[in-house]
């Protein structure tokens, strides 16, 4: 087991499409399971971010105080951080709220009074703006696409695990 690469995935503000695309690896998931161990992810059980992560794939943009804490934590615990999909790289759809003031957005949706999202409590506070990963922490690699298709993801993962320094190019880096 110890020879396997320890992979984590995270899901911030995004539609989960990148994770769906990851599951679209289909039968390649069996080969993935031989090469890597999924130690933390929305699709496995552990609730705490473990130490000693080799690669963290992060879907979604950084939208809340909790996501920002998790991003900083996983950056400390992971050797390689990968921005996984357009939301993580550009802000994409969740960034559509950015031109409007945060409180105005929250009030429009939740109304008056002590509404969720204004300050961190049971529900995390919404950050002033949804911003991509690289505006908060050092990001090592980028997998563009909304969502990145399974072939893109597979090429990236296999190259990273077997050879190191994956390089997506041409149509593989197209946004959208």
């Amino acid at each position, binding site marked *: 087991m110890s020879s396997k690469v320890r992979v984590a995935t995270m899901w911030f503000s995004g539609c989960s499409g990148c994770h769906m695309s990851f599951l679209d690896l289909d039968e390649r998931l069996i080969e993935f399971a031989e090469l890597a161990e999924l130690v933390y992810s929305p699709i496995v059980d552990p609730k705490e971010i473990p130490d000693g992560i080799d690669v963290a794939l992060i879907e979604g943009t950084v939208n809340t105080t909790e996501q920002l804490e998790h991003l900083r934590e996983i950056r400390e615990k992971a050797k390689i951080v990968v921005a996984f999909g357009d939301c993580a790289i550009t802000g994409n759809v969740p960034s559509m709220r950015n031109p409007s003031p945060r409180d105005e957005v929250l009030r429009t949706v939740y109304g008056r009074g002590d509404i969720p999202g204004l300050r961190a409590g049971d529900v995390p506070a919404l950050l002033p703006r949804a911003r991509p990963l690289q505006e908060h922490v050092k990001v090592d690699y980028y997998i563009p696409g909304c969502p990145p298709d399974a072939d893109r993801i597979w090429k990236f993962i296999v190259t990273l695990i077997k050879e190191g320094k994956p390089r997506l190019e*041409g149509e593989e880096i197209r946004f959208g």
Partner: protein
Amino acid sequence: MITLKLDGREVQAKKGQTILEVALENGIRIPTLCYLEGLSPKGTCRLCLVEIVNQNGKLVPACVTPAEEGLEVVTHSDRLAQIRRTIVEMLFLERNHICAFCVSNGHCELQDLAVELGMDHVTLPYRYPGLAMDLSHGGFGLDHNRCVVCGRCVRACSEVEGAFTWGFAGRGIDTMVATDLGTPWGLSETCTSCGKCVQACPTGALFEKGMATAAQIKSPEIIREVTERRPRVF
């Protein structure tokens, strides 16, 4: 004829040709955005910058610089790649380009440039400005969020259609394209609804109404075709 060097290769040019035209004739691709065949070149986007080796590596926009005898031009280098990538990064972060649900997704010259120049992320902070749309016209729409202010619509409208509906308003980073000095497009008295501006637009900023995501496929080459049949007056 003029003789000059492009990337170390001797090539022939006619007097009056630009460096970009000579490069195209010789099969050398130089990235462009504000340039469109059939319209007057303006050299504003700076993507076609090339280095003049025998002028201390001076950077000049290829689309507006005449080919001259003895010029040694470099069209691709690490320095130029870095400059061009930064320009495309700044075009992306300046407004709200959200490819995933844009009408031009997959058929966009800005998106194509990011692919060509290897831009998989931007290295500067996004601005996320609050920008409006103009949907007052019956057939077409304008989304400032997706506009790169290349001015191709402005030139197509004035130089080819002769309507002079489109112009620029504001200065610097606040520059916006505008119809009839800021009148809503649908109330414009000069617009002929010819649609050349939409076809000339490289992104999803100008689009045909009713288009779904990724459905807007444009034909900017019609500008060249029209001007071949009916030469521009100016």
